[in-house]
């Protein structure tokens, strides 16, 4: 009996997953535990392992398809084993026609392929196959009908048909929005231009997977939350000294090297505890003030960015924070983070101090309400007691959601953070 491949449920809140890339194709032999395909959730892209060894007999969905969790997305089995043509159908037994079961859409793979090619929603297509299964012809007929429903001149329809232009995507310039030949020709020219630019040396990449998730989340944050960014310069002399003294001790104890990130995280966590207005989330009409401090740490990974979360950062010592941050960062780079390690953050730190970045305006990671952007530490002349001296200075920028808090509490938090880093022994209080 063939083994089902199902859309995994990767987190308590996950309801659907997006198919990324199939790493194996139909007919390939796979080993149990071998990476089979990539699934994107709203937070990460994750590899799904083959549940069994055998031949990948069937894949029902392609890249970009959104599938509910636990839905069958394919089968692994013996060569020649018969599996259903559509994921909702039960196994064909002899000549028996598959019985309709639930409200799932039944369509032949050819129909699904045609639907993808023509941009048709299968739910809008009436099937004429056995037991109402949607066949390729049904998709094409529905597409034709849709083409005609859109108001277009006969000539425009004809040109669109020959040139594979979907009239529903064309903006009509004629009377009452009717699509004319000029509109279709403009669409053809645009299509040609797009494909020509693809042929040239300019590389293009489809926005999908993690890139798409980042794009959506950042746009949503930037365009809905009114951002205000406060900036302060922090004298890191004492923090530098602290790190120098603690580094060998922590390295010996945990095997991980202490970096400024952990010191800043510790300071931020303590400051958040003292300034709960900043450790908050907006949910509908309510502001939730969190009683725990879970700090997300932005980690760059190939083609993207993930934010693993350090739970209860305020209650952890620098050794524990160092071990945890380093472990999370490695898991992030190896794409091994599980959704649980990526959720629940109440605040985020984004440290670009390893680059020649002095300061930047970070975008809040929703549903959090504030984010700390950290620049590099470098020596700058500063006035101390009436004379100019060189001090290792670091710029910290705090972006906050003005719907949730105002400038005063945010400023108080940033001041607190500055004091904690300039006089790190205060963290012992």
């Amino acid at each position, binding site marked *: 009996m063939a083994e089902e491949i199902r859309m995994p449920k990767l987190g308590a809140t996950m309801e659907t997953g997006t198919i990324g890339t199939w790493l194996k194709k139909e007919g390939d032999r796979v080993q149990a535990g071998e990476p089979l395909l990539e699934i994107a959730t709203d937070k990460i892209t994750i590899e799904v392992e083959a549940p069994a060894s055998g031949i990948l007999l069937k894949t029902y969905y392609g890249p970009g398809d959104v599938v509910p969790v636990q839905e069958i997305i394919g089968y692994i089995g013996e060569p020649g084993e018969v599996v259903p043509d559509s994921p909702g159908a039960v196994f064909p037994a002899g000549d028996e026609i598959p019985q309709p079961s639930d409200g799932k859409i039944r369509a032949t793979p050819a129909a699904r392929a045609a639907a993808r090619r023509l941009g048709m929603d299968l739910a809008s297509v009436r099937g004429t196959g056995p037991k109402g299964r949607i066949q390729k012809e049904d998709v094409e007929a529905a597409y034709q009908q849709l083409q005609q429903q859109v108001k277009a*001149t*006969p*000539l425009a329809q*004809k*040109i669109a048909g020959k040139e594979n232009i979907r009239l529903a995507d064309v903006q009509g310039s004629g009377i009452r929005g009717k699509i004319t030949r000029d509109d279709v020709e403009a669409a053809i020219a645009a299509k040609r231009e797009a494909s020509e630019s693809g042929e040239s040396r300019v590389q293009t990449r489809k926005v999908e997977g993690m890139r798409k998730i980042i794009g959506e989340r950042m746009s949503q944050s930037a365009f809905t939350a009114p951002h205000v960014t406060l900036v302060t310069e922090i004298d890191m002399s004492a923090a530098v000294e602290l790190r120098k003294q603690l580094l060998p001790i922590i390295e010996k104890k945990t095997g991980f090297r202490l970096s400024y990130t952990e010191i800043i995280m510790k300071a931020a966590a303590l400051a958040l505890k003292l300034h709960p207005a900043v450790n908050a989330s907006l949910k509908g009409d309510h502001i939730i003030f969190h009683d725990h401090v879970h700090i997300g740490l932005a980690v760059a990974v190939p083609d993207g960015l993930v934010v693993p979360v350090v739970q209860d950062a305020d209650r952890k010592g620098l050794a524990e924070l160092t071990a945890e941050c380093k472990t999370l960062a490695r898991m992030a780079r190896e794409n091994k983070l599980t959704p649980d390690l990526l959720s629940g953050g109440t605040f985020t730190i984004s440290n670009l101090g390893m680059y020649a970045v002095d300061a930047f305006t970070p975008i809040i990671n929703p549903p959090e309400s504030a984010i700390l952007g950290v620049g590099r530490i470098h020596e700058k002349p500063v006035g101390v007691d009436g004379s100019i001296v060189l001090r290792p200075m670091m710029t910290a920028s705090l972006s906050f959601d003005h719907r949730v808090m105002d400038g005063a509490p945010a400023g108080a938090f940033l001041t607190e953070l500055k004091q904690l880093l300039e006089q790190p022994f205060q963290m012992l209080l």
Partner: protein
Amino acid sequence: METYDVAVVGGGPGGYAAALRAARLAGSVALIEKGPLGGTCLNVGCIPSKTLLRHAEVIELIHKARQWGIETGPLSFSPEQMLARKNRVIEKLRDGIAAVLKSRKVAVFQGQGVVHPDRTITIHTPEGMRTIRAGSVILATGSQPLIPSIEGMDRVRFHTTDTIFDTARIPKSLAIIGGGVIGVELACIYSSLNVEVTIIEAADRILPAEDEEASRFLHQRLTKKKVKIWTGATVQEMRQAGDGISLTVKDASGGVGSHHVDEVLVAVGRTPNLSGLSELRLEMNGRFVAVNSHLETSVDGIYAVGDLIGGCQLAHVASAEGMVAAANACGQRQKMDYRVVPRCIYTLPEIASVGISEEEAKKRGFRVRTAKYPLSANGKALAMDEDGFVKIVIGEPYGEILGAVMVGPHVTEMISEISAFMYLEGTVEELAGMIRPHPSLIEAIGDAANSLL
């Protein structure tokens, strides 16, 4: 100083259409016309010629009826009454224009307007000078007959379309210099009145701008009516000789001969009327005023339409331009679209065309297919004892209707069916599929379209 949102200079089909549209869209509109309302079209062009061509048609029909066994007795006609009817038609239409302008509250000024770059206009009215100011100005001053320079021309009395429609005296013979649209229409009028007509055309055929088969068809018909047609011929000299005029004509083979006629009509084209516009120093496009696709001239806020800007020099095009210019003068941003412009010649038989010819379509890179359907195979045409053809040009692979030419009775009305299909972007399949009444001349369009499927 009186101030108007829009001032239109010229009261022909371009000008009054512009004024009426502007009156709908803007607050106040002025129209300045030095002559009678209606311009060339109504007074000395389309309308008088069509009225007289109706007479010619009836005369021809009476002749034809004899072959069917219908005798009317000796045919006589009164040129005075015919002219009077023509004038009644003109007056009625002119009154109509005046009434519509009045009902839309367009201020009409009688007199020559002189347009200044600051969009003030000095009007030389019979009562004296008046000056008005306008937000936008639409120039629609039209055209006048083009007079070629021919030796001796300044010493002879010749007609243009400005004068010929008012002569009650019917000459024995008439030479028409120019075998274009105006020349052939007047040849039909005068030949039906038993005048010996000679057409002298410099090109190698009459109607050189039209479809060649249509031109040949008309050539044969005119020849049958005893109209002499000299193509490739030019008039070298004109001289008053007794009561008539003697023309020295160089023919296609280079031979020079003398030709004596009672009257001469010069119909070699029309030249724009630029009077009152010199101060504007408008950018020109050859003889004509240059405009962009929004009908804007080189001077800000000044538009130009109609014969003044050249193009096909047709009344209905001038009206369409007038409406676009008026919309733009009132703050819109419309473009003039010349893709579907019917062209009609009201000869006997009529010739009508729209779109582009087979040749032009090939030049523009279309894969072209053409169908020609003779009216000799059309029941209604046979019943009428008429002839002609319908020719349709389509582009592959879409079956797009690129153009059509028709020759025959009523084709100037029938052409609008093709225009409508083109305007609404129908293809040859729809043109072939539509049900038409039987019997009808217009069935020929369906037959021609069907032969292209």
